[in-house]
């Protein structure tokens, strides 16, 4: 545990002592701010219209603003995840510092989990910035916080899985750009796999759709904790971290 925390601290320190973290936070906050502004503007217009027509149809902030925005975050996050994970191991390999880690009395798995945890924490900070926007909804409206919390949990789990995959890809190369591009490709594929379910009902299509990270977010977005979906994300995390440890080990046998 102590070793994991040492590595995690070091990674966080290196995110926040370079422009990386601040750049990501700024871009994420700007992009999400724009989404939020649009979404709330649209919601206001809808509300005004329904009042003018004399219908007092109850409109839920949760359903019309929060839920779509949360799924938007999961898509925006897709673009940020490669930027978070690409340096994790590629940089250590390029600088030769991997030799320091590998010859210190610390297990591979502790290094991997420490690094992954730092990536998850940075992502959590990104999410925190979006929560600032939602805080305004609580000031002026009365949304339900429970489905929102569930939505955030889903986002964190989903990112955890993709970050684990990104960590794995980062062990495959010394070049950050290659690691980032490959991670982005894989994340995008895992996202769009779900599309086949739109026109095809055969078993293979169902399997592909099941593999998509987006399919499993729906229940969280609705504020429901579906074990099946949670299990999917947790398995993705374990798979990514397991592949990372295999990759690190094979590095030694091959090099």
């Amino acid at each position, binding site marked *: 545990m102590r*070793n994991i925390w040492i590595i995690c601290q*070091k990674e966080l320190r290196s995110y926040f002592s370079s422009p990386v973290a601040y750049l990501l936070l700024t871009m994420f906050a700007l992009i999400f701010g724009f989404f939020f502004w649009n979404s709330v503007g649209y919601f206001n217009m809808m509300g005004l219209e329904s009042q003018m027509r004399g219908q007092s149809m109850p409109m839920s902030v949760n359903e019309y603003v929060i839920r779509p925005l949360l799924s938007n975050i999961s898509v925006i996050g897709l673009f940020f995840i490669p930027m978070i994970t690409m340096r994790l191991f590629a940089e250590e390999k390029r600088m*030769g*510092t991997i030799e*320091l*880690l590998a*010859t*210190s009395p*610390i297990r591979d798995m502790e290094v991997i989990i420490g690094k992954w945890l730092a990536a998850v924490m940075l992502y959590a900070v990104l999410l925190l910035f979006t929560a600032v926007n939602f805080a305004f909804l609580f000031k002026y409206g009365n949304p339900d916080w429970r489905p929102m919390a569930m939505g955030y949990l889903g986002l964190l789990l989903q990112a955890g899985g993709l970050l684990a995959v990104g960590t794995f890809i980062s062990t495959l190369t010394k070049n950050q750009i290659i690691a980032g591009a490959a991670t982005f490709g894989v994340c995008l594929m895992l996202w769009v796999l779900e599309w086949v379910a739109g026109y095809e009902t055969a078993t293979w299509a169902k399997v592909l759709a099941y593999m998509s990270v987006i399919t499993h977010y729906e229940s969280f977005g609705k504020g429901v904790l579906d074990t099946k979906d949670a299990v999917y994300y947790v398995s993705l995390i374990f798979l990514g971290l397991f592949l990372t440890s295999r990759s690190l080990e094979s590095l030694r*046998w091959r090099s």
Partner: protein
Amino acid sequence: MITVKNLTKRYARTVAVDHISFEVQKGQIVGFLGPNGAGKTTTMRILTCFLPPTDGGANVAGFDVLQQPLEVKKRIGYLPESPPLYPEMEVREYLTFVGKLKGMSGLNLAKRVGEVSDRCAVSDVSRRLISKLSKGYRQRVGLAQAIIHNPDVLILDEPTAGLDPKQINETRELIKGLAGDHTIILSTHILPEVEQTCEQVIIINKGKLVATDSVHNLQNRARGAETVLVEVEGRDSALDAGSVQRRLESIAGVSRVVPKESRNNRSAFEVESLKDRFIRGDLARAVVESGWNLNELRPTAMSLEEIFLQLTGGEKPEAVAEPAPEPVAASEGEKQ
């Protein structure tokens, strides 16, 4: 302290280390000598548990590198060929991080960071970013990193590579100063480095063990015959290179005279002595007494290649001054 038995490391196409066995006693400084690509780095990486051996084994500080790597890692300090530094960290922060990695904490660690900074002369930059440091400082930070947890065994891969002469001297002195407390293996392809710092030498070439001996014995074996470069200039009349060569050959104790370049009334020769003969004085006198100017007289350093050839019983090559050629395949395998 270190026992290596039949250590072998095979890569896909090459054998980097081929059945090497040696022992290192506690408190010794051992030079690990060989040309580039000889398998030095690979052997060191196996000793530090960075690479697993294909065959054979090694025991460091009483623990097997394959069976108990964590125990071995606790007891070794390792400085790879390029120091493993994080450029975005400050020196003190970096040393503290490495100390934590090695299992240290709290006051003990803070005290030790101060100690090794003083010892490796990096205290004055402890608040500087590593990315802003010069090569010499980086090397010393690398050394400080290796000794932070006061390990039993220190493994240093080419600790003086890429430094300027002053820094090289400082680093050697530093390493000598560490000898009492630690058992040290340092690799190098520079012979004088071994002569100056080490007590014991292990020579490997193309993955095979060539010799393990004390520095003293090795010097005697290698220095049996002396090679001297002589440059002669004609004083009044034009210089006849042929007659100079005949005069030099006639000196007692000279076994061979090889003419080198000859221009502007000057001629250079490489003169080789017979075994255990000291010829420099006779050479100088002969040249001056013949009415020529002696421009230069210097012993040419024994190249590593020559020593290898002597030790392995090979013939002396024609191009003596050429540095040892790198076996390309092996070095490719060695550097990932």
